[in-house]
């Protein structure tokens, strides 16, 4: 018997544990589905800090290093991982404006929707990060 994921997703709202077991021929799919649906990436403290810095408007690698005090060997690999997880997105600035100013173009980073959601969870997870954000806001005021 072959069951599609759509059928299963629709059915699991109406069937209890045993009911879904009969439906799928494999009760474990219920628990895997529940686990997987809540399977957002868990960030390390460094990555969360980098993500928070980008969220605060610092979008260049060296700016992030300056703000966080982290070395380039930590910040750049963290940026690569966050980009790979699609939590941030990189873009090159328009070449025209850089050319007009006679300077090299820069690459900047911005948050994605997934990144914002993940950051919210990360902030809840890391109490110290939350305190830093609060302190930053108070300082700005």
């Amino acid at each position: 018997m072959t069951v599609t994921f759509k059928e299963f997703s629709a059915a699991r709202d109406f069937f209890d544990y045993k009911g879904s077991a009969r439906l799928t021929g494999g009760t474990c799919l219920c628990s895997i589905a529940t686990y997987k649906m809540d399977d957002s990436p868990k960030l390390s403290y460094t990555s969360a800090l980098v993500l928070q810095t980008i969220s605060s408007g610092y979008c260049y690698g060296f700016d992030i290093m300056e703000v966080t005090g982290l070395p380039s060997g930590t910040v750049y690999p963290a940026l690569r991982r966050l980009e790979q997880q699609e939590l941030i997105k990189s873009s090159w600035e328009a070449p025209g404006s850089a050319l007009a100013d006679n300077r090299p173009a820069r690459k900047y980073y911005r948050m994605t929707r997934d990144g914002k959601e993940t950051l919210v969870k990360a902030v809840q997870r890391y109490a110290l990060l939350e305190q830093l954000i609060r302190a930053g806001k108070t300082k700005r005021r």
Partner: protein
Amino acid sequence: MNVHPVNKLLWWCNLILRLASWIVPRQKRLEWRQEWEGEVWHWCQFLRESGRLSVRTEQELLSHCWGAFVDAVWHRFNRVVVLTFVNEFPRTPQFCVLACLALLAALLAGRPVAIFSGIFAPPPCIDPGHLLTVSLSEKSPWLQPELLLETAVRWPKETQLFTSEATYAWRPSLVRGPEGGESIQSARVTSGVFELLGVRPSLGRDFQEVDSENCVILSDALWKSQFRGDSHVLSRSLLLNGRIVNIIGVLPAQFRFPVRNIAVFSSFGTFPHPLLPMFEWPGVLLRVAAGVDAETAKRQLQLLISWQGNLPAGTQLAVSSLKDLQDQALKTYGIVVVLALLALLALQWRSFARLLNTRPHAPVRDCWRWYLFFAMKNALMLLTVFFASLEIVQAVVTRINVSTHPFAGAAATWLFLFGATVALRWSILDQFGRCRTCVRRLAVRVNLGSPAHVLLELTGVELVCDEGHGTLHIPLMESGCVDSERWTYLHDSWHVLLGSKESRISAP
């Protein structure tokens, strides 16, 4: 503010970045360097314009540039890719086959086992394709070696098909040397036998007409087992069947007498032949002339033997080429392996039946891949066990300093049977825990129900293919019609749930 220090600083930074960029893969290198150089340029300008340019900030910037090496290494050896490979590759069928091959290669890397030396090692004599052997057939009555010698001497003279001949007579013997007694096989040979085979003693010399009856040449194995490879063995003596004999030579390690595993050779004419019949078995080796086909020579020799009437009535001589003997040996090994495999499958029938119950039953290609992998894995495992058992027995026999041991064959057989049973059991269990579509190990394991509720609800384990191909249900208790082991295919839409491999372990 002076512009010169900034340019110098930029030059140094760009040099470091250029060096680091060589680590980055070629297709990403240019973009990577542009990003870093752009950042460094802007940072230098920022330091200059904000008046923060000092020796300390210059050093800070340079140390940040050295950090580019870490970033470059990340690009080259992406942690996620490496971890994915480390986690995923051992579960693939390719890993299993490669591991078996590596094990097999490790076993065969050194000296090939003695039993297969004729197949894997260089041939023990020159041009074995042009060698014929004549021996008594199974139904023939015993023949006195001297009678065969007299007959065989005439064959090269009567036909132009052969360039030389040599007669031998082998028998089981007992040898006693410095390391104690040994049961071996010895042979009396005519003086031209080693010349016919194209072999020269590695130590000492060949037989000569003037040699007394007590001169012998040893095989390499006996020389090592009795004299521990002593190079001063010549002119030393040992006891052969109760007689003192002198050693005049030692044969090379790769030499193997074509018909029997002979450890001591003595001269044919000088050594007194035994009076008891059926105690010594004669044979003849013939070198086929260059340009003559071995099969043609074989047929001609059979005709010649049938015409000659000087042999006792009822004597039947079998003529075979060395190639025939090798083919026969291979055929025998093949039959033994097939029979052993069938016997092992019968022993493992219960496990095998479990595997058959959950076999793939979808596309033909999946079924082929499944069975092909199973067959290949078993073949490699059995070969590995076979070589390992021979090597172990060989190592033990060598350690106890005997050239041949009467129980070596039986020990190797039993060791092989035991090892093959374990290997086959493991192979079936391994196959059982693999996806029926992609043949990868099932990675996700979920326990169902509670053992306390075994009769009330479904309890057991479910193994899920993390590619989303299907699930394997294994009940805690096999209860006939209620619950049984089964493989359930999942629809392609389950890929949405089970996701890509990289995202599962990409937690930074």
